[in-house]
């Protein structure tokens, strides 16, 4: 049995499991709520219940007073839902966020392309068109719907009923191996979405910097195609890294875009390309390529990061040392079981 939790002022609705706290459900859904002690003593995570019933759990009577309980306050780290609930939390309202309800989208596989030796482009025609914000992801139900895996949408929202997922085979990974070896054109499949709060802050005046690596190209690609289609004239740069030229998928597409749009710059980087190859672009990691391209000064940008954790980590450090800080850095935050166990400092919230 699970309930639905709607979080104001962003208006997003998420599922909360029976024994799950509001805080845990929100963090796992990628919604950051203020919190500190996580066991009902410090009151940092106090939220207002606007509608519905909650159980206050272990909340200390000093951290959550009786009069506050009467006023409908609760501590997100201890509260469990007893009905569908709406809360108001201290989340910054984002003028660029659309609240798009999550739905199921049945569809048919129309094409499967080998983008690189390890990445397949899977094209699915959904029965109904999916409305989403460029950068968001879907859950793709595999092996007849037995389980799902999350993939970012690689197409811009304008492609209508056809969505594109770029799926890298993870050695030993059940889901991606099944996609690579078993999925066929014509198969009926199901997606749910759109999910996530990774999208372009279109109302922000700053230049845009996209940093992508590995199979993390999908969201930035969707974002860039969307912006350019809409005629956005702000300077935007894609710094895009792979190990080798063979893995650098959509390279020609970005070269063409850069040639066509004077406000779009494309900086590819290869970290493990054989020294004797004819590659004339940057050799090294994404963060180093960005540092060199911007002469270590990232001020005046909004940065959007997508890629493997080590790349993200190196990019954040490079950006901050080039004077671009948390408020201007965006990324999709997935919480894995390992993250929860790791000792983390609360210095940063989103990154």
């Amino acid at each position, binding site marked *: 049995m699970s309930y639905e939790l709607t979080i104001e002022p962003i208006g997003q609705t998420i599922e909360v499991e029976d024994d799950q706290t509001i805080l845990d459900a929100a963090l796992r859904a990628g919604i950051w709520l*203020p919190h500190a002690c996580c066991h009902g003593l410090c009151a940092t995570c106090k939220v207002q219940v606007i509608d519905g019933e909650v159980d206050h759990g272990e909340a200390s009577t000093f951290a959550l007073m009786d009069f506050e309980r009467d006023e409908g306050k609760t501590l997100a780290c201890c509260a469990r839902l007893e009905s569908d609930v709406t809360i108001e939390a201290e989340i910054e309202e984002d003028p660029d966020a659309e609240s798009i309800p999550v739905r199921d989208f049945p569809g048919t596989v129309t094409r499967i392309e080998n983008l690189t030796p390890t990445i397949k482009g899977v094209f699915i025609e959904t029965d109904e068109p999916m409305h989403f914000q460029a950068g968001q992801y879907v859950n793709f139900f595999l092996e007849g719907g037995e389980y799902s895996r999350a993939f970012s949408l690689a197409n811009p929202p304008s492609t209508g009923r056809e969505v594109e997922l770029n799926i890298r085979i993870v050695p030993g990974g059940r889901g991606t191996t099944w996609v690579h070896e078993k999925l066929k054109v014509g198969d009926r499949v199901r997606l749910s979405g759109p999910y996530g709060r990774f999208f372009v802050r279109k109302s922000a005046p700053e230049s845009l910097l996209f940093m992508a690596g590995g199979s993390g190209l999908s969201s930035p690609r969707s974002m860039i195609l969307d912006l350019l289609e809409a005629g956005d004239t702000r300077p935007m740069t894609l710094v895009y890294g792979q190990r080798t030229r063979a893995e650098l998928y959509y390279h020609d597409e970005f070269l063409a875009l850069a040639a066509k749009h004077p406000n779009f710059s494309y900086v590819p980087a290869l970290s493990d390309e054989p020294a004797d190859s004819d590659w004339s672009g940057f050799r090294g990691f994404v963060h180093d390529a960005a540092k060199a391209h911007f002469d270590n000064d990232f001020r005046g940008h909004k940065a959007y990061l997508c890629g493997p954790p080590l790349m993200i980590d190196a990019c954040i450090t490079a950006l901050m040392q080039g004077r671009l800080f948390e408020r201007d850095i965006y990324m999709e935050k997935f919480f894995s079981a390992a993250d929860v166990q790791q000792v983390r400092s609360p210095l940063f919230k989103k990154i």
Partner: protein
Amino acid sequence: MDMQVAKKKLGLKERYAVMTRGLDWTPSYQKMEDIYPCIAYEGIKIHDWDKWEDPFRLTMDAYWKYQAEKERKLYAIIDAFNQNNGHLNVTDARYINTVKLFISGISPLEYVAHRGFAHAGRAFPGPGPRVACLMQSLDEIRHAQTQVHSISNYNKYYNGMHDFHHMHDRVWFLSVPKSFFDDAITAGPFEFMVSIGFSFEYVLTNLLFVPFVSGAAYNGDMGTMTFGFSAQSDEARHMTLGLEVIKFILEQDPANVPIVQRWIDKWTWRGYRVLTLVAMMMDYMLPKRTMSWKEAWEVYFEENGGALFKDLARYGITMPKCAEQIALEKDHLSHQAWSTFYNYAAAANFHTWMPDEDEMAWLSSKYPESFDKQYRPRYEFWREQAAKGNRFYNKTLPMLCQTCQIPLVFTEPGDPTKICYREVDYKAEKYHFCSDHCKEIFEHEPEKYVQAWLPVHQIYQGNCFPEGTDPTAEGFDPLAAVLKYYNFENGRDNLDFDISEDKKNFDEWRGQATKNI
């Protein structure tokens, strides 16, 4: 008919902005630098005060309502504890010495923190940090009051607490925490925020406040424990303020990074030296231990602090160099401190004792590298001597470190058999230090630290005797005169626990409470 368009409800952030920043104004007939004269001289560059992100959104009206309710609850529990003779439910009377250390060493610091945050708040041109400092300033004076009230019941029954504030300003070892805070509040507003707001409230609070409160919980002291719970929601705000301060300063200008690094290095070490008192409290003074000092340091500093400094590295901040020396000292700190207080038991407002066999076994298991080799033989010898009637009380005065004001009792990093001495010649005077780190702090600001009020020097200069004392009189006893100046009652407030009035009374009262005499 006109349609009334409902105004959109303000979000929490906007509501808070209206209630805080919205109240600020730009002066028209005074210059900013005249109104905020302390803001530039430390070299910190702030370009945009609006970049300050409020770490919490509590408005003044909500603050009063919430704190008043919290304190009503706290006082109800303190009353119940007192009326029920809760002091007789603590593990044993040795525990009460922890309370004495807290009331005379820590509570007065809460009051100084109140002053410090009021002063820092006044100094900042940005309304965001000003409001945050105002609230923390109020928290600190509330904490001073509620601690005094929580602990005052013990003062009705036990010795050593009757004049804690007077003692705080005079007693040799209490000059360690006192001078630490005096150093902070006499620094500029930014250094104060890094020293107390960040280093103390964020990096070190789990090693100061938490051990006392969990020690109280483990040892049946419901009053102090309840105070701790009631303060925790305030402490959480203080920690988030400390983090925002550091991020804000570091993001404003790259030139701020080396200044902040120096302050973090300095205040981590200064704070750690004050924690010496906590280390010995954890390992020796709590009859029921919570964890060892070494374990606490590993969890709260090495692990949690390590994660913090990993994140700070993105700004170019590195782990303070002193962490290496602290890691070498963690097997020794508490033992060297307790040995010192055992020696100077005649001149402290609490009692000391030798650990019993079970406690020695606990210490051996927690400190397998050091305890049996370096400290157990010493304790066994002292215990033997005490049994023969030779309980040793050191009556000479030790050499103090010019910076941290702790006697030179610590050993060389890596060699626990050799006392560490450092010295500096400055303007034809010689100054002494317990460590390289205290020496470096002095060398960076010698004019500040030459002014230190060092208790031993003051005694030798004749400034620590009651007014009218004639040190040249026949049979003058300097120690007795100093104890009088401290307002210690010799033989009651000091000396060994075994012969103390506290022990005798506690046993008798507990007997009365549990038997039909």
